[in-house]
């Protein structure tokens, strides 16, 4: 069996000369890669963790935002309204996926319980676009001429009544089904104009703390009973992918807006994790640069030590490209091996971490993220390209 061209080149171009440098470069590359992959994986895991805890079923969250009522503002209702400029600014923020107004009633509303319950109260309505409502119900619709208004109550309201008011006053506690079954007499009025409706509770919302009616009813009633002027909203609702986004928390704080603080409480933790992950990633990048430098020195040494041999090969007609390909063939399996080992290590670490955390009821994926795999591939390709450029440069310099 005759040796191939590359086998003969192997006898002529000894790559063993810089073994210690090669080991250093390979070790550096391996550690750099592990750090980078851990940074990316940790980032992914933390994201996943937050999203899982907060919305089991949904990938987005809804925040009702209003201006903070301060002592200075009291008695001046207009100061709590959002100006069009403020609304436009909020809408163009990167964390705002969808945006809706909460529209208030511009008329008086009273509600009375039917029969002998002797329940009578002044109340208010608000409406938001349907896509922001977490109650999906066929009865949630209204058209002019309908005598029945569907109403959504906040879940908290029923809880307050059942566990706060009813218990202390000796009144009966009411189930959700009962409330839904009870028709209410709703009267809306403005001055001398009045109209009576039957109100029917169709659901309970955890998302929006207000008495909600369909937008179609609100528009009709505000048109007929209202002042005719569209009032500026003082509460808005946004849909956001990640309520723990530190940018969002920072924005609300800067503008003096408030929302359900519970929903954004993770933003501080997230910022700390981001800093740690960035530091790890930064060291990974620095180490990668050094590994590339050592690789470059190794390639220079190998080529310089075989200068005479390479020159004779070129004299005999070996194309510089053939030499480049031969040298790259010596290195590429090493990069791929390093990439695979680093990926396996990080995968092992991820699996171990998921088992450890599962014992504390914290669940992260057992497998590494796609982005981590892509990053490993990217680093290998980067190293390949940089080394190829080096090989070409040094070979051209002596041939």
């Amino acid at each position: 069996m005759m040796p191939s061209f590359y086998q003969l080149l192997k006898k002529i171009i000894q790559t063993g000369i810089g073994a210690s440098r090669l080991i250093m470069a390979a070790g550096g590359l391996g550690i750099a890669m592990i750090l980078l992959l851990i940074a990316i994986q940790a980032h992914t895991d933390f994201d996943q963790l937050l999203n899982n805890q907060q919305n089991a079923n949904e990938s987005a969250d809804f925040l009702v935002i209003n201006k903070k009522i301060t002592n200075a503002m009291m008695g001046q209702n207009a100061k709590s309204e959002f100006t069009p400029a403020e609304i436009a600014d909020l809408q163009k923020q990167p964390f705002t996926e969808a945006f809706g107004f909460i529209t208030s009633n511009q008329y008086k509303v009273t509600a009375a319980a039917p029969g002998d319950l002797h329940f009578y109260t002044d109340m208010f309505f608000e409406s938001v676009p349907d896509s922001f409502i977490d109650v999906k119900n066929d009865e949630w619709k209204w058209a002019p001429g309908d005598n029945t208004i569907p109403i959504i109550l906040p879940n908290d309201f029923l809880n307050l009544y059942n566990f706060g008011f009813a218990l202390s006053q000796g009144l009966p506690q009411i189930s959700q089904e009962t409330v839904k079954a009870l028709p209410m007499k709703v009267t809306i009025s403005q001055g001398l104009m009045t109209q009576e409706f039957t109100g029917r509770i169709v659901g309970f919302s955890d998302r929006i703390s207000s008495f909600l009616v369909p937008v179609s009813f609100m528009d009709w009633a505000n048109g007929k009973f209202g002042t005719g002027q569209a009032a500026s909203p003082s509460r808005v609702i946004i849909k956001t992918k990640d309520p723990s986004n530190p940018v969002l928390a920072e924005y609300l704080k800067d503008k003096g807006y408030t929302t359900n603080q519970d929903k954004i409480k993770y933003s501080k933790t997230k910022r700390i994790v981001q800093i740690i992950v960035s530091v790890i990633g930064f060291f990974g990048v620095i180490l990668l640069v050094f590994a590339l430098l050592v690789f470059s020195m190794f390639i220079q040494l190998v080529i310089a030590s075989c200068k005479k041999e390479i020159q004779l090969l070129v004299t005999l007609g070996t194309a510089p490209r053939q030499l480049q390909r031969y040298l790259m063939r010596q290195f590429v399996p090493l990069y791929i091996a390093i990439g695979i080992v680093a990926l396996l290590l990080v995968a092992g670490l991820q699996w171990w971490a998921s088992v450890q955390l599962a014992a504390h009821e914290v669940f992260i994926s057992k497998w590494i993220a796609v982005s981590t795999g892509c990053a490993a591939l990217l680093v290998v390709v980067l190293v390949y390209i940089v080394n190829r450029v080096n090989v070409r440069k040094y070979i051209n310099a002596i041939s």
Partner: protein
Amino acid sequence: MSMAVATAMDIFHLEKALYWDIIKNTSFMQIQLDNLVPVPLRDKILQRSSDIWNRPVTFTPGSFTKIKAPSGTGKTTLVHYLYHIRTDYTGQVLVNGQPWASYSKGAIAGMRQEQISVIFQDLRIFEQLTALENIELKRVMNAQPYCSAEKVKEMAARLNVTHVLNQSGRTLSYGERQRVAIIRALVQPFQWLIMDEPFSHLDEDNANRAAQLIAEECKARKAGFILTDLDNDTRFAYDTYYNL
């Protein structure tokens, strides 16, 4: 990863194909000299007349050319200029009408694999390879070798070096190295064979065997050669004589 490698290989093949176009479009590789004068020998050469230096010369493709050159007239220098491994001259060496310097490294490598072959006076054998590996290196450098491994054995037998084929290049005598270098030059396709005192280390019998083999191989390729030597000789049926 494999994508990147594949792309690099594609480019390599593409360029190789381009060389092939250049080669195939040129039926004969033409070598011309245009007032060539080596810088280190300038004063010495301008004092006397020469058939080669400082004048236009066209080597006829396919012709057997002998350049007789006494010591110190720049014989080896000329060979190195013709093969483009030295460039310290004024004037030009033109290949297919273009100066050597206008060709890229890749294109020059392609020509050295397909169109022009060389036997150096200092032989230039890789000492870390065996005699046979030295020849093989040249043979398999081309993706499609021009001649078979059997043909190499046959040539080695004709030049009486079969017994040293597996010997390290380091231990070969000058005569053996010279014969290995001759075989190495003959395993590739060429249109021109450049030889610098190719028989200097051979006895009469081996020199004649080598000359006969070279002549046969040139004829088989319809190739010409340029041979430089110190004295007159009748080993080949030369078409052209020059005095350096």
